[in-house]
């Protein structure tokens, strides 16, 4: 299976949570179907003064690219390893 690396550019992230909301695995986690999400909002604040998104378990990423295609600020990138 392909491995994916998720890179968050924290300086660009303005904490809009779009990526967290569209991520299929994170949604499965919210429904209690998997034990860990791929993305979640962290407690840290980024360069723009908003809480930034963080990667929890990249090994569950399916490479669907929904997060990086929907990020308005091009702050999250899914890269094939």
């Amino acid at each position: 299976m392909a491995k994916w690396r998720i890179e968050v550019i924290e300086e660009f992230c303005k904490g809009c949570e779009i990526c967290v909301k569209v991520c299929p695995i994170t949604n499965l986690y919210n429904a209690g179907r998997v034990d860990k999400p791929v993305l979640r909002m962290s407690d840290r604040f980024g360069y723009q003064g908003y809480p930034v998104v963080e990667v929890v378990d990249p090994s569950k990423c399916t490479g669907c690219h929904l997060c990086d295609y929907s990020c308005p600020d091009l702050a999250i990138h899914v890269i094939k390893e």
Partner: protein
Amino acid sequence: MEFKILRVDLSGLKFREEKIDDKTLRRFLGGRGLGAYLALKEIPKGANPLGPENKLYIMSGPVTGTAEGFEAGRTHFVGKSPLTGLIGESNMGGRFAPWMRRSGYDAIVLEGKADRPVWISVINGEPRFHDASKLWGRGVHHAEYLIRKELGVGPKDGGVVAIGQAGENLVRYASIIHAGSRAAGRTGLGAVMGSKNVKAIFVMGDRQPEVADRERFEKGVEHLKEKIGKHPIKDALNKYGTAVLVNIINQIGALPTRNWTKGTFEKAEDISGEALAEKYLVGTRGCWGCQIKCGRLVKTDDPKWGVPEGSKGPEYETIFAVGSNWENGDLQSIIRLNHLLNDLGMDTIEFGNTVAVLMELFEKKDQLPEEKREELLKLLDGIRPLFGCPCPAMELAYRTATRNGIGEVLAQGARALADYFGCDCVAEARKMSLPAYDPRAIKSMALAYATSNRGGCHLRAYAVSFEVLGVPVKTDPLEVDPKKAKMVKEQQDFFASIDSMIVCKFNTFMTPSPEDYVDLLAGATGWDVTAEEIMEIGERIYNVERLFNVREGDPGDYLSRRLVEEALPDGPAKGETAKKALEVLLPAYYEERGWVDGKPTKETLKRLGLEEFMYII
């Protein structure tokens, strides 16, 4: 007049200074002219465009950054194009060239090839190399952010030009991007920069560009300021940007739609500059010193097509390339794609045309030979590029920039894609696909495209200005009149001079004659120039570029089959092709230029003082 060049030897990681003497400068001014002259002299015949023997010239001109009130902040890039294999040059707005002059150099030339990724900073005459391994693989927005962070400078100090992932992966139409949105887009000079392993260049300083005759110069500036300030086109450009053209061009049936098979687009209203201004505009932005301020700052509402608020909006060409050419009437998707393509560092016109060809191939896949059809479907890997649907374009853009799957073929450009699958459905000249004015509906654009030295381009001669906008006089766009050959030729010469000074071409809508620029140029340089001399310099530059092409094996002045054989099915130009225009206008044009079969004659070269290049013809 002094012109200082910084030569960057990337193979040995060394810098060298060079001065251009006044005599050469007066023959070529700077910018495009001097760049083309140096390229013809220094790039060896048959050089690999992506090899160390190619050079990239980053030029300013004698007027750059000297005054406010008209646009004099443009940068000109010259090199051998990886897309066409001929002369490659591209002009970019913004503030880079004024900062470059302030840093102490009027031009930067990249030579050789670095063995690892580097970026270059020039601050107050002190050039330095920096390690770019942390920047490599990043988009231009992030690269610029990291550079400014490392140097500790604010967002308004100094100028950065950078390439994105497309340039790094040698996509043949990669662009060089400044300030996130100002692009030296066409002819793929971003790939040349990428092939040299240069990620970015930063320039800053406080040296003031010198002006030889202040009094005369001020007179020239006042004249331009006044003429530009009270012209109606200025207000239209400020209010709606270049996208104001969408409705105008659609009305005369010259808005290429559905991969150049139609001339009008029923959803043109939705993607026009008026719609952009009404729904998504948050501000305007101009280049250095400009009072027109045609740059758009936009936002979107749809989270599917989100961009950061204040992102730079699409130009008319982009709206055509990823809008009407794909039959895509969703303006928000165009804004998002514009933002993404800038970040990846790709030319929107060529990318739009390439994907349009792919859409047509996908639509006609049953007509392809068996093995080609299977290969196309295998390369597409489940992506369905359909007309009217912008959704797969994001995926295609990423794949092209990283040369993944179908991206490997898309990265070669529209012509190469069509050839690869054996389907002649591309609109191009000299292997570069055409921008957003259909030459079948605007006859003199056919001549302008065919004779443009860098390939299909609307900026060598912007015949739209007299055919459609009525500057300086209104002509009938459908009429084929040999007189138009002279108008195109004169505009090409004039624009070559304008690109060398360097002033923005939008200023020439309001100041369409060379007389308007005599005082400005004479004041800035101290030369006693006349309007005739400005035109002669332009003609010399145009011949030098043509000589470069002739030396590299020019394919000739042509338009691709779609434009000369397939008639437009709709709109005011129904039933028209570009065939007659080329047949009538080309001979008249050669006569005007003193060329035979698209090549300058010995007499022409002698008249223009280009004897040193006689060996080429």
